[in-house]
């Protein structure tokens, strides 16, 4: 458990600074520091075990089915990295406390920092590569936040995005690579994977896995050609640069290569890819560093270069080279973090990091100078500092490695070292040596101990390791290199290898050459400045910005809000897919005997076809279009009647008229004509699409109509049970209110909701000033002066009760004959609408007792409760019951609970239709026009007119 605890501690600790910041900046930093320290102590407790060659494991099952488990392990390599992460982390926390301004949100900083620390620690402690992936991506995320910490800096935003794009993107390659790796092995546990070298390297998937994994590692560790993001990440506050971009995060890629070294290394592919990338990165990074003026940029490219060095060493694939790599990881972390912190100090003091504006700081900032001096010399590889030790070993390895030709590697490695000397010395010379200047943006001075103690401690390590390598570092190198190579390592580190060692001469060449180069700086600088070279940011932006722009225009083009196109695409897709599906199966022509054509049907057919086909031509006059639609809708009714569906005929007729009323109400607010907007080719194309749809559906209808069902339809049950089981002779009605009453339940609720929606939207519309203005300005053609004609009112006085009676009749007979609650509700609604048309909505509604909402509510409630009522009898929802009642002197009659359900249907339909139409007519109430106070406008009986 304890490894998991160590990994979890920073995450838990991430909560603290956010809270502790209320207690002050010291408390905030202390909270982060103490958590880190605690983790460090817990880690230290494991050191003996690891040094004794043991591997500490903690296993927690998380997602065993996938093989993703919270398995942790600690071996030498993990220990090395964990110590670095926590140790340097502790120093950074201290440093940052004094570095951040009071205006910077410190709580946030430490939260992000701790998140990062946890993620990084997770990477190096994971024994499961999927778990490692999770932490891997988390480092990308937290680094994104840290780089962008200074929100106001555009470089911060861009740098953060670039870093995330490169490392996050690389992480995606890594996902694929590790999944392949896990697939080859059959497990995602590192312990298992590391034991499967032969299987992995023999697999066909080895090369893809290798490339994908390396892409992940290279992007993270800023290896060529992915090195460009790191300098831009320098927009981050310096503690971040020191921590993430020199000591830890950028080494995650290195860690991964070292971690998988036992199973991936040793093949030509590995050598060629890794060593080459490392070599190129080393030389290139060092070269660029020499010409940079920004202190942090120098350090950034230097970091790139050193990471290249380590990568190259790992790429060699030998035990010795790997050991040197491990050693250099330690050394680089110490001097580079110290240098970054010092750069921050200079920036703080002089308000600039620009080497061309610095110089002469030696006297003004003696403490800082001391730190920088030692760290730079180490970086340059000057004895006896630790940088010298690992550089010598590196050159020795390079000298004995054949890459393209036997000497090419040695030559290039020496070149890299030479550049390294050059920029290290330049940093010293141009930053600190020479006479003090008078034109610093601010007068430089040494900071308080709070700021310099952390780099000083690191420099102390630089010196100690440099002087006493065997006492101070060898144990860690042995442990880590042992873990990397999988073999016991006992490193021998000496300052002097004798005159016969190639490294000595290479080193001397490098130092001398470096000094010469520094001397020639102005001239070289001019050449550099004139030479065309790719600028990373422009290249990256040149890649990403067009990508984003392309995405934007593509998205805008595809999702341009065109409904017509969406419909056209949908219709064609549906037709195409259906055709494809149809052709993929066998189809037999139907065998059903067909009905002879009768006269009535033929004429109705002809009318409907003609009306439908005329509509596309005449539709631009909207009243005409509505009339034609009405003709078609109306004529469907006799069609239903002919084909034995009286209930449908009733429903169709009543729905049709309500629809027409609704559309007329709506058309009042819309233009009366549709402008001619489509070109003839477009209309032709539309007609083509429509024809495809029509032919398709027509064909399907034909295919269906002419065949028998493959199995006996379930409706035989409904016909058989309609009377005995459901108590009604109208099988359609018993299906609606009983067998499938639940459908009807949903259906009336649809209608109820429709009305609510219409009401709600009309309310909203009336609240909008723009809408009310448009309503007041609706075009008003010449109008009838008689708003409520008397004769209509008088006729309605008779027709209304008649219609209501018809409604009641339709409702009551529905169970046994065509009709039912739905049609009855519509008939009632039509009757009421007649009244509204006659005397106006306001006048009529004022003399009425119910609110339409309540009707809908009761409808839903009655239908629901009728369903729930069955529970009382222990029966399922909507179970009906019926009985025949004898009540003298009446004839026998039937009482059925289905009638109660049908009453709910009735109420809901009535309420819904009335509410919908009332909402629309409310919109039409004209501003300033008072509602009528009498049922009709012209009353002949009034004497005084």
């Amino acid at each position, binding site marked *: 458990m304890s490894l998991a605890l160590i990994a979890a501690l920073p995450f838990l600790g991430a909560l603290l600074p956010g809270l502790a910041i209320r207690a002050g900046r010291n408390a905030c930093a202390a909270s982060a520091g103490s958590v880190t320290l605690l983790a460090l102590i817990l880690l230290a407790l494991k050191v003996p075990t690891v040094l004794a060659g043991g591997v500490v494991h903690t296993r927690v099952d998380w997602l065993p089915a996938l093989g993703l488990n919270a398995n942790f392990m600690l071996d030498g390599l993990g220990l090395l990295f964990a110590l670095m992460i926590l140790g340097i982390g502790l120093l950074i926390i201290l440093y940052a406390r004094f570095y951040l301004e009071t205006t910077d949100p410190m709580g946030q900083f430490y939260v992000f920092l701790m998140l990062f620390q946890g993620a990084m620690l997770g990477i190096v402690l994971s024994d499961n590569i999927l778990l490692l992936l999770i932490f891997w991506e988390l480092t990308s995320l937290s680094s994104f936040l840290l780089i962008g910490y200074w929100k106001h800096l555009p470089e911060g935003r861009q740098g953060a995005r670039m870093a995330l794009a490169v490392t996050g993107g690389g992480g995606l390659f890594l996902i694929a690579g590790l999944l392949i790796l896990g697939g080859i092995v059959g497990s995602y546990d590192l312990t298992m994977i590391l034991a499967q070298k032969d299987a992995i390297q023999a697999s066909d998937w080895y090369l893809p896995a290798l490339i994908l994994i390396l892409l992940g590692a290279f992007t993270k560790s800023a290896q060529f050609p992915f090195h460009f993001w790191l300098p831009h990440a320098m927009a981050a506050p310096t503690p971040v640069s020191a921590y993430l971009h020199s000591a830890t995060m950028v080494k995650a890629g290195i860690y991964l290569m070292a971690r998988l070294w036992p199973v991936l290394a040793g093949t030509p592919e590995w050598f060629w890819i890794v060593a080459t990338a490392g070599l190129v990165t080393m030389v290139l990074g060092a070269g660029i560093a020499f010409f940079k003026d920004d202190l942090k940029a120098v350090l950034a490219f230097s970091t790139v270069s050193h990471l290249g060095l380590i990568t190259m060493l790992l790429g060699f694939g030998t035990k010795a080279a790997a050991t040197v790599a491990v050693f250099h990881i330690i050394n680089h972390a110490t001097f580079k973090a110290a240098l970054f912190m010092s750069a921050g100090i200079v920036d703080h003091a002089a308000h600039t990091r620009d080497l061309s504006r610095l110089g002469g700081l030696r006297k003004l900032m003696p403490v800082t100078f001391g730190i920088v001096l030692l760290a730079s010399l180490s970086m340059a590889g000057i004895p006896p500092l630790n940088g010298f030790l690992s550089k010598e070993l590196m050159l020795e390895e390079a000298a004995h490695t054949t890459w393209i030709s036997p000497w090419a590697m040695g030559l290039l490695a020496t070149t890299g070292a030479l550049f390294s000397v050059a920029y290290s010395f330049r940093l010293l010379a141009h930053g600190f040596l020479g006479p003090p200047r008078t034109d610093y943006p601010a007068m430089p001075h040494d900071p308080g101990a709070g700021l310099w103690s952390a780099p000083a401690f690191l420099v102390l390590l630089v010196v100690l390791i440099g002087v006493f390598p065997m006492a101070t570092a060898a144990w860690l190198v042995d442990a880590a290199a042992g873990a990397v190579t999988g073999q016991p390592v006992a490193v021998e580190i000496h300052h002097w290898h004798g005159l016969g060692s190639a490294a000595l001469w290479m080193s001397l060449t490098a130092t001398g050459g470096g000094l010469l180069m520094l001397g020639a700086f102005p001239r070289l600088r001019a050449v550099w400045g004139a030479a065309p070279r790719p600028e990373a940011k422009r290249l990256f932006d040149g890649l990403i910005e067009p990508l984003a722009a392309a995405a934007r225009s593509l998205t805008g083009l595809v999702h341009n809000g065109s409904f017509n196109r969406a419909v056209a695409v949908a219709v064609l897709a549906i037709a195409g897919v259906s055709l494809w599906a149809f052709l993929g199966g066998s189809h037999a022509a139907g065998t059903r005997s067909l*009905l002879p054509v009768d006269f009535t049907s033929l004429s109705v057919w002809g009318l409907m076809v003609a009306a439908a*086909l005329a509509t596309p031509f005449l*539709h631009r006059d909207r009243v005409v279009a509505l009339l034609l639609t009405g003709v078609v809708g109306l004529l469907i009714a006799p069609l239903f009647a002919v084909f034995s569906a009286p209930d449908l005929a009733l429903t169709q007729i009543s729905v049709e008229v309500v629809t027409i009323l609704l559309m007329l109400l709506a058309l009042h607010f819309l233009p009366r004509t*549709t402008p001619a907007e489509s070109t003839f080719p477009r209309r032709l194309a539309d007609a083509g699409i429509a024809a495809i749809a029509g032919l398709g559906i*027509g064909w399907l209808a034909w295919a269906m109509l002419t065949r028998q069902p493959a199995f006996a339809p379930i409706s035989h049950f409904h016909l058989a049970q309609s009377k005995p089981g459901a108590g009604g002779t109208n099988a359609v009605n018993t299906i609606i209110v009983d067998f499938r009453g639940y459908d009807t339940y949903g259906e009336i609720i649809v209608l109820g909701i429709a009305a609510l929606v219409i009401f709600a939207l009309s309310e909203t519309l009336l609240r909008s000033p723009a809408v009310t203005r448009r309503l007041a300005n609706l075009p008003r053609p010449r109008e009838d002066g008689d708003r409520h004609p008397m004769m209509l009112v008088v006729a309605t006085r008779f027709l209304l009760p008649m219609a209501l009676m018809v409604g009641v009749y339709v409702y009551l007979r529905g169970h046994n004959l065509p009709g039912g609650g739905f049609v009855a509700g519509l008939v009632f609604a039509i009757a009421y609408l007649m009244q509204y048309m006659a005397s106006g909505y306001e006048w009529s509604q004022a003399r009425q007792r119910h609110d339409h909402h309540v009707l809908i509510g009761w409808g839903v409630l009655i239908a629901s409760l009728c369903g729930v009522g069955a529970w009382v009898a222990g029966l399922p929802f909507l179970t009906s019951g019926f009985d025949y009642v004898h009540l003298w002197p009446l004839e026998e009659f039937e009482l059925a609970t289905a009638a109660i359900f049908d009453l709910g249907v009735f109420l809901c339909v009535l309420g819904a239709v009335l509410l919908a139409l009332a909402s629309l007519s409310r919109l039409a109430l004209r501003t300033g026009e008072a509602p009528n106070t009498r049922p009709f406008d012209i009353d002949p009986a009034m004497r005084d007119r």
Partner: protein
Amino acid sequence: MEALLASLIGVLTFTGVYLLLRQRTFPVILGLTFLSYAVNLFLFAAGRLVVNAAPIIGRSQTYADPLPQALVLTAIVISFGMTAVMMILAVGGHLASGHDRVNTGDEPTEDAG
């Protein structure tokens, strides 16, 4: 007779889809109405065509399949509700924006009033 119904369904679909491809809300709604006519008839056709056999028990010897009829009933009601909502949306869109185009993103700039 079957051919009549099938072709009618096809023609109604044709008109419906054609109107759906117009650029104003009102014809689009009419298109949906036509489409729903076609679909209701198609659903009805799932019960096949029978004459003089209304599914009223005791009124004839054979009965038309009552189930598709019940389904069509449901479909008619639902499409009525949907049309109603679509209609008020069209009205709302027109009142709120001053025009009744159905495609967004191609409205002319002078559509303020």
